[in-house]
């Protein structure tokens, strides 16, 4: 967190950014057979996973040049990447996800990875919705790494038991009944961290639960004004606001992992968060099913909001580096890497049809739902995690939802009007 602030502060002025550009111009060009990889996986488990990828690439005779930029869900990495790209010296691969992939492709900077994809049969191995995110104008320009499910609800079984709640609530009505009981028992019903992406993580689970996958897609992915203006959206906003009544007053600004700790320590009953929260539970030595429970957010059992990390591949001139790049892409999608990486990270493999023996219950459930929803159409991209819409509109909608959550003076009707306006941001 502090590192992030320091770094963001150094990026305060455009002229300072440009100074960084000038420096990187002088930084030299990659050697033959070398793949420079920009990523922001620097925490314990993640760093281990990246080391695995490095080993695989070196086994194929290439050199791995690590370019790790810590902090802030990739914001810092994205800033550094821009300065490198503007200076005409991009890395071979960079960790970028969602529609940002297409934005980079539209700048004409990404390499066509169709040859690798065809040789490795990516079209058969990836669900179509996921493959579409990796493509620009029908060609692969990025390699997917993992799948996080976002519409999870985590719970502390002891807190539920003490409050007399039997099992995880399946609908929002059940949820509020359970939350009332927890509140009465003296615990905080919902642990929430008030940052705009956390607000939106909860919001999109509510929209998905209230309106279903079709409505979610129309309203939040296609940003259809009719869907945004519908009674279903009104109900979603009302439900979302109602949840706030079950959170504690100190939530604004709280980090997600501290929020997860509240559930872990029995201070709070539920948390809405993606499956990286599981990594937090496991790291504290908690066992799934016993010390903590996982279930789809109320009403979203048949749907799945995905958050897929991926690497975009830049156009390179050097033939050796191109070979290293395509080998890197193939390695990322290989069964070996997919298993090791995702066991460390708490997510599940993006490749369909993998053996899930080594994964825990929540992981197995996630993988099963991933496959099922891919068939039924319940598999939808997460807006909160930059998978669905362009950053400008996403930012505007997140701002608006977060303001609605925090400021009780904003009425539901006002919020709905503002939501439609925010969705029109180009």
């Amino acid at each position, binding site marked *: 967190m*502090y590192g992030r*602030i*320091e770094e*963001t*502060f150094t*990026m*305060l*002025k*455009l*002229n300072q950014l*440009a*100074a960084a550009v000038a420096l990187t111009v002088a930084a030299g060009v990659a050697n033959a057979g070398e793949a420079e990889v920009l990523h922001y996986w620097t925490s314990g488990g993640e760093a281990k996973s990246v080391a695995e990828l490095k080993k695989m690439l070196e086994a194929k005779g290439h050199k791995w040049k690590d370019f790790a930029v810590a902090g802030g869900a990739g*914001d810092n990495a*994205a*800033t550094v990447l*821009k300065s490198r*790209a*503007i200076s005409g010296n991009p890395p071979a691969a960079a960790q970028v996800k969602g529609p*940002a992939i297409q*934005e*980079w492709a539209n*700048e004409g900077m990404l390499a066509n990875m169709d040859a690798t994809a065809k040789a490795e049969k990516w079209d058969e191995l990836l669900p179509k919705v996921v493959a579409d995110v990796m493509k620009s104008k029908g060609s692969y320009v990025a390699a997917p790494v993992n799948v996080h499910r976002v519409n999870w609800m985590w719970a502390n079984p002891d807190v539920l038991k003490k409050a007399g709640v039997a099992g995880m609530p399946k609908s929002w009505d059940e949820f509020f009944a359970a939350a009332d009981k927890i509140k009465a028992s003296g615990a905080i019903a919902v642990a929430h961290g*008030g*940052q*705009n992406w956390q607000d939106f993580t909860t919001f999109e689970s509510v929209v998905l639960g209230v309106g279903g996958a079709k409505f979610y897609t129309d309203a939040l992915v296609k940003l259809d004004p009719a869907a945004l203006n519908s009674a279903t959206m009104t109900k979603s906003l009302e439900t979302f606001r109602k949840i706030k009544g079950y959170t*504690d*007053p*100190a*939530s*604004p*600004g709280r980090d997600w992992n501290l929020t997860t700790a509240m559930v872990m320590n029995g201070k709070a009953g539920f948390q809405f968060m993606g499956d990286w929260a599981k990594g937090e539970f496991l790291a504290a030595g908690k066992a799934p099913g016993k010390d903590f429970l996982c279930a789809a957010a109320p009403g979203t059992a048949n749907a799945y909001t995905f958050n897929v990390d991926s690497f975009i591949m830049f156009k390179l001139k050097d033939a050796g580096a191109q070979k290293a790049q395509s080998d890197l892409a193939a390695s990322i999608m290989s069964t070996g890497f997919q298993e090791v990486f995702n066991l460390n990270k708490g997510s599940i493999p993006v490749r369909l049809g993998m053996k899930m023996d080594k994964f825990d219950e929540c992981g197995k459930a996630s993988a099963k739902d991933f496959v099922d929803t891919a068939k039924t159409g319940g598999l939808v991209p997460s807006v909160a995690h930059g998978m669905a819409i*362009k*950053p*400008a509109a996403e*930012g505007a909608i997140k*701002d608006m939802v*977060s*303001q*609605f*959550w*925090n*400021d009780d003076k904003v009425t539901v009707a006002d919020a709905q009007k*503002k939501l439609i306006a925010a969705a029109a941001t180009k």
Partner: protein
Amino acid sequence: MSRTLESMLPKLVVAPGFILGFAFIYGFMIWNGVLSVSASRMLPNYEFVGLAQFERLFEMERWWVALKNLGIFALLYVGGACVIGVLLAIFLDQKIRAEGALRTIYLYPMALSFVVTGTAWKWMLNPSLGLEKLMHDWGWTSFHFDWLVNTDMAIYCVVIAGIWQSAGFAMALFLAGLRGIDDSIIKAAQVDGASLPRIYWRIILPSLRPVFFSTILVLSHLAIKSFDLVMALTNGGPGYSTDVPATFMYAMSFTRGQVGLGAASATVMLMTVAALVVPYLYSELRSKPHDR
């Protein structure tokens, strides 16, 4: 030969710094200006769109919130730091004991970066960690202080932390100003029978005018640039209720892929600073020949 070298040397020594300063300050200011009238999105491009980015900027509710916050923050922060600074300086000027130690204590916050100040105050003002919890633990259970998490009041938390940081600095400036006032004027006033408050109000404070001017100038440009304090204390939240132009600019340029819009907001900030600084510099530079 040596004569020419002697006359050239100072220019040669100053030249690199001058060129670098010119390119990296004014050059990038101009580049920012160019970007603010371009259609730049994720990466800079140079398609001219006139003032469209500015129109979009002033249609955004979040920008107006940021401007309003800047107004509140700048006014209260500069005013508060000046008032407290003057009072501290006057009290310290009463020939008290241990003045050196007290002065150091009041100046100490200046030694911290705004990030540290912001983080410390974040903990103190957080209702479940800081002041409110302390009061509850001590038995005053009706005590209620939730400004930090209240969308209407959070900006005042930023003001409090900012004043805490800067009041000592203002005090140091005023103290230096007080020491510079000629004792004989005060003595003359005393002989004339003026009371102490009257002496301060009519003689000492007016003669501190130049000090007020430079203090306000220094503090107001700090206020306009304020970024780290807000990032550390509230991160712009709850929602975007404590957003200021600098955090707005950062969010738009670097995380939202709207470089043009961010450049437009940076231009507005530059104009604001210029509006404050240019008249001041002008008056200073013009008055020099008369004074000296």
